[in-house]
């Protein structure tokens, strides 16, 4: 053994090392050859799919649009049967003002409207009237001291002096990102936060200079809230703040909650807040739950009410119909493939063209021609009535139902069954059946015991092709499926192009993909994927 490992190549290296190096070089060359295709597939196929599927759990929009609200809601609101405390409404006022300026509130509304009806119009309406939130406070403060109307007062109160200098110098030009003064966030936390989002948003969105614009009314709301609890007022504008505080102490101004309820009563509805709280996390299982007829709530997972359950039924139907279509393809395709494989070459080539012909016709044309054939006033019913098999007033319904989908899809997918079967059957030597016959088997036994098992790899390949194509089909079921013959893919298509609930579509697709992979795995265990042959 020791001798063997010491075999050296001509240049004195151990053979093993030389061999490994040669192999590695070969592998590298092979990798380089497929690299363009691999990169192409990863970039244009895998990455977009992964990105799309990722949407099924992604839910940042709520916490990004209403950051302060979400935090306060989590901290301050526990009793779910009452509306949340004032702190939540105040946080909402600050977040909403910013969201409206960025036009993000309606986008969030579309998202939340998927979970509960009413968000779309509530947010749109509130967005139009957002200036009313904090308006009483603003008017009151300006009444006390007109300086509160002046942007400069706010700058001297809140802004970092060096930033303020830049802002004044660059009037009309690009203003640098707003910076708060030191310690102001400790003394006036809400005002600082609300003003900061005001200043940053108008610089970014409207390219405006905070030194020239009076803040949103929600900032006045924040100031009045801070003053109500502030202990020591020192630093810039202390005198003004004190005057404002003393005036506010005796004033009776509506709270943020009351002001929101003034815009729309729905803001006082605990159910609305429950939805926001349930979907406030960065990631959610909500879409997956919806995709299997469940729903997420604060109390945990619930089943959808009976009237809204539809997806499980459609998954079941999709699987069932795909199996029926696959079986019909075997039953119809096997004899044809057998015939093709055993006819003289010239004839079989001609027939093969007939099998391939449907591939060269548009899918829509093929589907529509099934309509012409199968409808009640169609060719088949006309013939049946003419020969007297069916009464004129009892014509068969063969389209716009499951039957129609199965017929049309079996026809469309048949070549995918015939071609692998044909190429496998071509490789089975005819002498084997003849040998079986000469050994005493009758023609059935010779076929069933000898020929059929050898054609199994073709059936396997055909089944996988047809089943996987069938399970994701949607054009044909949409056109001829009617009410009972539609697939889950029709709902996915609906959510992609109509409702634009891409996350739910992604969840449904992921489940469908998982289903296909599970079935593939099962198939591999039972039949063995190595037994599948395409020729």
């Amino acid at each position, binding site marked *: 053994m020791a001798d063997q490992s010491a075999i050296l190549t001509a240049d004195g290296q151990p053979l093993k090392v030389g061999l490994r190096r040669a192999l590695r070089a070969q592998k590298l060359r092979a990798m380089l050859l497929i690299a363009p295709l691999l990169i192409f597939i990863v970039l244009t196929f895998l990455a977009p799919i992964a990105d799309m599927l990722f949407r099924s759990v992604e839910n940042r929009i709520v916490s990004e649009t209403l950051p302060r609200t979400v935090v306060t809601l989590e901290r301050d609101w526990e009793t779910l049967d009452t509306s949340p405390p004032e702190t939540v409404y105040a946080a909402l006022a600050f977040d909403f003002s910013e969201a409206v300026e960025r*036009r993000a509130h309606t986008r969030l509304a579309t998202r939340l409207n998927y979970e509960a009806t009413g968000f779309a*119009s509530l947010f749109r309406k509130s967005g139009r009237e957002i200036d009313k939130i904090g308006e009483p406070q603003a008017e009151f403060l300006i009444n006390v001291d007109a300086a509160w109307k002046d942007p400069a007062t706010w700058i001297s109160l809140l802004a970092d002096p060096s930033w303020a200098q830049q802002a004044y110098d660059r009037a009309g030009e690009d203003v640098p990102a707003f910076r708060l003064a030191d310690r102001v966030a400790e003394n006036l936390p809400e005002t600082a936060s609300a003003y900061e989002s005001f200043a940053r948003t108008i610089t970014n969105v409207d390219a405006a200079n905070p030194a020239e614009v009076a803040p949103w009314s929600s900032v006045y709301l924040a100031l009045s809230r801070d003053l109500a609890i502030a202990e020591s007022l020192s630093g810039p504008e202390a005198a003004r703040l004190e005057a404002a505080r003393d005036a506010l102490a005796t004033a009776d101004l509506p709270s943020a909650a009351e002001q929101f309820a003034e815009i729309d009563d729905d803001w006082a509805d605990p159910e609305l807040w429950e939805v926001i709280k349930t979907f406030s996390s960065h990631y959610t299982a909500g879409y997956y739950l919806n995709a299997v007829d469940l729903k997420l709530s604060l109390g945990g997972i619930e089943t959808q009410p009976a*009237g809204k359950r539809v997806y499980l039924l459609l998954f079941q139907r999709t699987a069932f119909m795909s199996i029926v279509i696959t079986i019909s393809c075997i039953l119809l395709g096997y004899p044809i493939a057998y015939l093709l494989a055993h006819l003289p070459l010239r004839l079989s080539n001609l027939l093969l063209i007939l099998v391939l012909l449907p591939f060269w016709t548009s899918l829509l044309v093929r589907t529509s021609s099934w309509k012409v054939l199968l409808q009640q*006033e169609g060719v088949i019913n006309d013939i049946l009535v003419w020969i007297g098999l069916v009464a004129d007033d009892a014509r068969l319904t063969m389209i716009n139902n499951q039957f129609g989908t199965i017929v049309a899809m079996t026809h469309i997918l048949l070549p995918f069954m015939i071609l692998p079967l044909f190429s496998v059957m071509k490789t089975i030597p005819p002498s084997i059946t003849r040998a079986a016959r000469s050994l005493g088997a009758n023609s059935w036994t010779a076929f069933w015991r000898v020929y059929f098992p050898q054609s199994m790899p073709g059936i396997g390949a055909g089944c996988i092709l047809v089943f996987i194509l069938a399970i994701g089909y949607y054009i044909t079921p949409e056109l001829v499926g009617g009410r009972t013959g539609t697939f889950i893919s029709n709902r996915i298509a609906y959510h*992609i192009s109509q409702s634009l609930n891409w996350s739910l579509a992604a969840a449904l697709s992921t489940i469908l993909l998982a289903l296909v992979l599970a079935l593939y795995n099962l198939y591999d265990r039972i039949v063995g994927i190595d037994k599948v042959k395409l020729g």
Partner: protein
Amino acid sequence: MRCIASIIITISAFVLSLSTTHADGHMSNTLTVVSWGGAYQKSQVNAYQLPYQTLNPSVEFVWDESGAEAFAKLRAMSEVNNVTWDLVDAVPAEAIRACDEGLAIELDHDAVLAPAPDGTPATEDFGDMIVSDCFAPQIVYSTTFGYRTDRVPEGVDPPSGACDVFDLETYPGKRALEKRPIANMEWALLCSGVAYEDVYDQLETEEGRARAFAKLDTIKDQTIWWSAGADTPQLLADGEIFMGSTYNGRLFSVIEEQKQPVEIAWDWQMFDLDGWIIPAGLPEDRLARAKDFMRFATDTQRLADQAKYISYGPARKSSAPLVSTHATLGIEMAPHMPTNPENAENTFLYNYVWWADYRDELDQLFQAWLAQ
């Protein structure tokens, strides 16, 4: 990626700006318009594009027929900051949502749309048709019922409107309805005796919904549920159904162009609108061109002209008196308009804003009902 994309955009904007400098100032010379294909798009080409090109011979038009998926594609384009469309033909429901999502720009209607010839500002001339800040209305169409005249039982008056679709005893035969809740739910309630003004209040309640589904249940098995506008005309022409809902322009072509034994039952026709939206994020020159064309295409004469080619009513009040005869058939178009007083005795203008809220929920209920 974003960096490369912005370089490409800058370069293409630069190239575009080069090619336009010799035309009219800073407007782009190509215009990509999204519409719905078919006779409708042809009417837009004839009524808007060709006269516009006689005035601006250097402008090239690219028509994209993806109207049905426009909203989804627009969102995908805007996510990668590469909007290739300049003007999109959309229904109000989509315009509202596109506006909500920031996919379309908000319009100052009086500034961007032409006033009527007598000087009436656009907002007054269009009136209620301006249903969203992002929406510039074009036409009024309706979803209504066509029926086979040769299948009306003897001694019975022909159907007059939507409610006859639920009357299987008087009018036996199959029906066709669209595979979505919008319009069907309203008809079901109206025809089960709910007053016009209560329909949407009822649809917000469990009982109201149950009532609508119960009404639809009576014809569920006799109905073919369509999803493409061309389905009902084909089903009517083949005699597959006795009556079915579709867009009135489609019925016009079945009746007047294909001379099929079909008539329209106008009662409770469901009005809908169609109009333009301008995608958000267009470069200056393309935006200017899109606005310029939109202003031209929605003026009083252009909207009246479109009615020469298709039986959809102009959305402007001032266009109505100018509606004349069909361009090739030579027949008077006014009686075929959904807005014609004789056809518009009982009409339903569906509530877009309500549907923007309730669409997701009701659609799920409707699909679940349909699948069972």
